[in-house]
């Protein structure tokens, strides 16, 4: 009995922690946005542009599509999969469509994700989670009292995924692909002491 109580308390704590995830801020249009400005004195504008396109078309190619580009900006759209966590495992609960913009100037760049639209997943006859509809609900559209708790979790999930996306993007823009290709994986030789 004691074991079950500990388990229940642990579960309750975990669920509570999940619910306290932070949300994205709103922009001047009243839309949720993930926005960052990054200073990068060492990389020139063309390299940044190339790396941004590499990120969209190679690193995130399964979930992103490049829409257009100029000599100083790239526009793309994509989806983030939101997970529902149960104890230490979980499953995808839905996906969020977004628009992605990166603008580059000499010595710095900025990027943002916005126009988030949520599409819930449902388990299909084979046990796989698939989209229930093709029409998304804007994240700003509150779903009413009945589903407000779930919506908060979704907003928290989007914030986590968008932050991870931002970290991945900054990492790619800070890394030269040619240098990366040249750099061999470190090996350990047992021939020398």
């Amino acid at each position: 009995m004691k074991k079950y109580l500990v388990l229940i308390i642990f579960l309750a704590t975990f669920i509570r922690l999940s619910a306290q995830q932070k949300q994205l801020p709103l922009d001047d249009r009243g839309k949720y946005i993930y926005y960052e400005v990054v200073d990068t004195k060492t990389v020139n504008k063309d390299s940044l542009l190339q790396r941004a396109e590499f990120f969209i078309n190679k690193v995130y190619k399964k979930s992103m599509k490049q829409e257009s580009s100029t000599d100083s900006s790239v526009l793309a759209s994509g989806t983030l999969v939101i997970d529902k966590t149960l104890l230490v495992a979980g499953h995808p609960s839905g996906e969020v469509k977004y628009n992605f913009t990166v603008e580059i100037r000499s010595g710095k760049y900025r990027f943002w994700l916005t126009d988030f639209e949520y599409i819930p997943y449902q388990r299909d006859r084979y046990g796989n989670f698939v989209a229930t509809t093709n029409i998304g609900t804007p994240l700003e559209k509150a779903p009413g009292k009945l589903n407000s708790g779930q919506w908060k979790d979704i907003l928290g999930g989007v914030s986590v995924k968008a932050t991870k996306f931002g970290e991945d993007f900054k990492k790619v823009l800070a890394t030269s692909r040619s240098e990366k290709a040249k750099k061999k994986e470190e090996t350990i030789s047992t021939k020398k002491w």
Partner: protein
Amino acid sequence: MKKLLTAIFAIASTTCALAQETPASPLEISGSVDTYFKYDFAKQPNNILTSFASDHNSVSLGMIDLALKKKTGKASFVGELSFGPRGQTQSIPDAASGNSSFHIQNLYINYDFSDKFAMTAGYMGTFIGYEVISPVGNFNYSTSYLFTSGPFQNAGIKATYKFSDKVSLMAGLFNDWNVYSATRGVSSVGGQLMVAPVEGWTAYLNVLSGAGGGGYGTIEDLTTAYQITEKFKLGLNAANYDIDNDGGGYSGVALYPQYAVASAVTLGLRGEYFKTKDVGAVTGTKYTAVTLTANIKSGGLTFIPEVRLDHNGDKPFLKNNGLSAPNAGQFSLAAVYAF
């Protein structure tokens, strides 16, 4: 049950630990629980003989359904078990164990040879039809005659080739319907063409030929759904089943319009026409059924109030006094929780 839960937690914990060392998707755990109250207007249990929700004037159990999925590299598995009347005695293959065991809903292994080509082997939910066993996968809580008469699951091996996001083709070899191991050998061949002509509209053209319900026969099936607007969705299922040597079969069509009246409330209608075919000198019979259903969602919970009216001129239904009747009706209220 306790052992099973312990095993699930152990697997989940192990997965969490291993996830730091190998690039693999986490173990997915999902499932559902459902319960219902049904009142037959003629106070007759089993008056409308479609699958599930059979009790009258009783708060009764559906099933608890537990599903595990994991993908490592190109290989994945799904294992899904159900316990409770909907997932045991009413899901057919359990009869051999005296209707007391759990039921396997899905148990298969999949391998993605490429982004376009995959092969799957095991016991899988059927690719035929619109409705499924799991209450989470259906809008209506009661089921159609088409669902009840068709296969529930198929064991076999299938290959799927995805030409694009709009077209894919599946072909496979299967055992007879709803059995864990073949009683008549790998006796069926099946195929599915999926087309998505416009965004939001998906159609499946299905064929299954071989050993099935009532003998050897062939089912042709069309299952399609179109999300026409944000609020309005239309589904359709049409099927024809011919059993060889005048062994009967069925044909029918069901239409599923659904309209979201609020963010948490959707109303849906199921209109069905269903006909069993003549078996020798015994003539078939025709059913029409109309079901009005609401889905009220709050998080993982869905309340499903439903009114259903069925008609058959051959009077297969019962009145209050036990005499035969051409009409039957029922009200049900179900609660389904998906996690």
